[in-house]
């Protein structure tokens, strides 16, 4: 499996890291020699220094034998051109990062078809979507949805003196009569795929799969329900802010956006006149309080600097803002932020590397029959949630789940049949045509058959 990555910025590096970890042969292309040096020193990849749309450079990278070609330079135009050239030179699948809202509107379909793109990704739009989902359900620290949008994977943090503390999962089932499944637990450094005897503790980060309505019901019963945010304050008028603000305003809520740069503010205000755009230094606490930090439902820090986002978020938490989200791209910093009590962190690069890992596996599995529909990596990437389409050949179909011999640390967390989502019990069966959500820790799934012993 040969993959070429053009552009080794933050996103590019995280893609390289994730794909090398998946066991693919990766070629990294970047125009800066120092960046390429660093990559070559750190990862087991081949490095080519040059312009990613240049034919000679692409030849050197071996584009004609590439299974997947990914262009994630800072320039949309270069990404599109590189993918176009690569596709013509024989790359089997091409993925371009296209971020500019102008290209992402109506022209995207046309562009994609003309350029022969397999798919285009827009990390900022994806991150904004993720943020929006969390703001709709502030009790969660992370939400991932599976196809059809009915089944969701929600991550919660059990606060101190949680009513779930000391409860085993069997007792939990008996006490709360709702259809849900706790499918992964992170406690300190360890990650568990729990069975019925597992006892929860305060401070655990738990992953729950359930349908959208059941989640609301469960949260209400647990007393964790928070109303969705109606007003939000956003620090930084970046692209993510634009997409997020647009969604938020379209659903009739109030948004305040703060940015230092006057010209950026002006452009933002011109694009979204409904938002309140403040030009000022977001690290000034006085300014934040003046603009109503004390009364806002949620605060989102989206500047380009991880450190600033973390610091301002801590301040906002201390001011009693009910929901604080920070964008942190570097994973080391994300861990530190977690230790500082900021449990809700989004990272556009993680979203993108998840998507690419899914494509890479889907291509690898092109001979296999059970195709991958979606893939998420949770809890620092140590747990994977993978959604498969079940084909007729799956050997485990029509067998009650309790009789199915699964590998350790594997759990079937949901079955989507038509428009219905099932939280499976021991008597349920997988049928051909279903989509199945599998949660695993410590291994990589390429085919649904991999879960069987």
């Amino acid at each position, binding site marked *: 499996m*040969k993959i070429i990555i053009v552009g080794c910025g933050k996103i590019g590096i995280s893609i390289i890291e994730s794909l*090398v970890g998946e066991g693919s*042969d*990766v*070629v990294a292309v970047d125009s800066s*020699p*120092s960046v390429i*040096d660093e990559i*070559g*020193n*750190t*990862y*087991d*990849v*081949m*490095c080519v*220094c*040059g312009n990613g749309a240049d034919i*000679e450079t692409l*030849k050197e990278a*071996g584009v004609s034998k590439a299974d997947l070609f990914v262009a994630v330079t800072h320039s949309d135009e270069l990404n599109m051109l590189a993918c176009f050239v690569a596709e013509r030179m024989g790359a089997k699948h091409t993925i371009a990062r296209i971020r500019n809202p102008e290209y992402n509107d109506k022209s995207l379909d046309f562009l994609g078809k003309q350029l022969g793109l397999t798919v285009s990704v827009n990390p900022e739009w994806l991150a904004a979507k993720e943020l929006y989902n969390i703001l709709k359900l502030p009790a969660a620290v992370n939400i991932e949805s599976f196809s059809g949008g009915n089944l969701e994977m929600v991550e919660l943090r059990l606060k101190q003196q949680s009513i779930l503390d000391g409860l085993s999962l069997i007792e939990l089932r008996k006490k709360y009569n709702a259809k849900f499944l706790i499918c992964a637990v992170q406690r300190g450094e360890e990650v568990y795929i729990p069975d019925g005897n597992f006892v929860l503790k305060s401070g655990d980060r738990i992953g729950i799969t359930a349908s959208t309505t059941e989640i609301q019901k469960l949260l209400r019963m647990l007393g964790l329900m928070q109303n969705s945010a109606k007003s939000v304050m956003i620090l930084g008028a970046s692209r993510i802010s634009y997409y997020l603000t647009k969604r938020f305003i379209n659903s009739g809520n109030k948004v305040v956006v703060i940015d230092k740069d006057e010209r950026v503010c002006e452009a933002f205000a011109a694009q979204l006149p409904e938002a309140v755009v403040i030009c000022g230094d977001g690290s000034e606490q006085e300014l934040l309080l003046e603009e109503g930090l004390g009364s806002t439902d949620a605060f989102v820090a989206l500047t380009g600097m991880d450190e600033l986002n973390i610091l301002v978020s801590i301040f906002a938490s201390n001011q009693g803002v009910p929901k604080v989200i920070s964008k942190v791209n570097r994973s080391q910093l994300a861990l530190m932020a977690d230790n500082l009590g900021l449990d809700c962190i989004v990272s556009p690069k993680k979203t993108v590397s998840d998507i690419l890992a899914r494509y890479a596996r889907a291509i690898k599995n092109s001979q296999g029959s059970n195709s991958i529909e979606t893939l998420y990596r949770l809890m620092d990437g140590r747990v994977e949630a993978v959604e498969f389409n079940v084909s007729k050949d799956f050997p485990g179909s029509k067998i009650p789940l309790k009789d199915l011999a699964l590998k350790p640390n594997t759990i079937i967390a949901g079955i989507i049949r038509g428009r219905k989502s099932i939280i499976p019990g021991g008597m349920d069966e997988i049928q051909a045509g279903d989509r199945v959500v599998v949660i695993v820790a410590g291994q990589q799934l390429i085919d649904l058959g991999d879960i069987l012993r």
Partner: protein
Amino acid sequence: MNRKMVFFVFGRIGQTVGALLLLPAIVALIYGEMLQMQSFIAVAVGAIALGVLISRCSRTENKVIYAKEGFAIVSLAWIGMSAVGALPFVISGEIPSYIDAVFETVSGFTTTGASILSDVEAMSKSMLFWRSFTHWVGGMGVLVFVMAIVSNMTDRSIHLMRAEMPGPVVGKLVPRGKDTAKILYMIYIVMTFVQIILLSLGDMDLFESIVHTFGTAGTGGFGIKSLSIGAYSDYSQMVIAVFMMLFGINFNLYFLLIIGRIKTVLKSTELWAYLALAAAAVIAITLNLLPQYESFGAALKDSFFQTSSVMTTTGYSTANFDLWPSLSKGILMLLMCIGSCAGSTAGGLKVSRVVLLFKLVLGEIKRMLHPRAVTSVKFEGKAVDKQTLNSVLIYFAVYVFCVIAAFLAISFEPFSFETNFSAVIATFNNIGPGFGNVGPMGSFADYSAFSKLVFSFAMLLGRLEIFPLVIALSPSTWNKSRA
């Protein structure tokens, strides 16, 4: 410093060397040399046991290595290999002095081919085989070999390759370090087999073909006859001359040939510079030799063989070039310093560095004429970045310092200036024979033990391109506080 990982890999190399020692043991068995076989097996078992022990004791989860660990591993490995590889010579009693044996083994692994033996033909077959086999192993590199066979040692194996492979810039052929190492060794093995077959079609028997092919492939130069290659037919001489040139070419180019990128190969600046340099030297030496030779053909043959042998830093000889006129000797001395292409098995400064140095000089002259001129050095069709140019300049400076230091260290010896100086050049650039007493018909036997150690160190410095050893030997590398 990730010491555990350094020793873990070191242990693996001990096991590998032990396994490699079993090959001459088999040769000894075939020729019925029992004493030699026992000494090989004893050393092999010892090396494997020690290697396993060291690897076991330093097993670690943290497999992250940086450039300095790469340098340390490579240096330790080469010193350790030489120390162990010398033992069979001593145990079997064929080279009684341990220092002499170390000199001979270092000379083998570094593909130098300088010898302390005054009578090669008296050695047993298995010892001769082992001597030449060290050339073959050292040519492509032991760590590259270990990388090719041991499964994913570390993600950052590039540091090991870079420390062991010669040349200013070391890149991968394919994404995985392991696959790159495999491809390099496959090319190496195939070329070796082709040469063995071609040689055995001539007047060499199988043993002679194998031994001489090892010497050619690693660009080493240990012969098994006092007359070196001069004892064989013109056909054998030409096969060896051509293959020496082939092994002096950057192996990356062979890979590009295999995957069908012939145009890129033909555009290679280094390849053309290498061939042009060789052609110019052959013509100049031939013309210079004409008065001494009866026919033009004979002069051309010897001058081609000797140019190929010296430029690729092999060191085989078909004629006693010590008796040649000064101009020819001067050209040969120059070729010794230049060496062959980067990424080949040869030593020397490498043609690519010389080309870059030359272009830098031209650029500087241009800058003196036009003080505001912006100059850029291009190589292989690409502009070379400042960092690489800088490291080439520094390498050249350090190279000159080291040669001078080595020369001073041995200058108390009672030999002529020519002998001493050419001995340093010949060992540092991994050629083998020099001029005067250490010429093609002489040997290093008369030097003192101290000088032999200096030469051994010079050979290692030359093979590993100086920096790995310097870094591994400076105490601050091993400091725990800088871990």
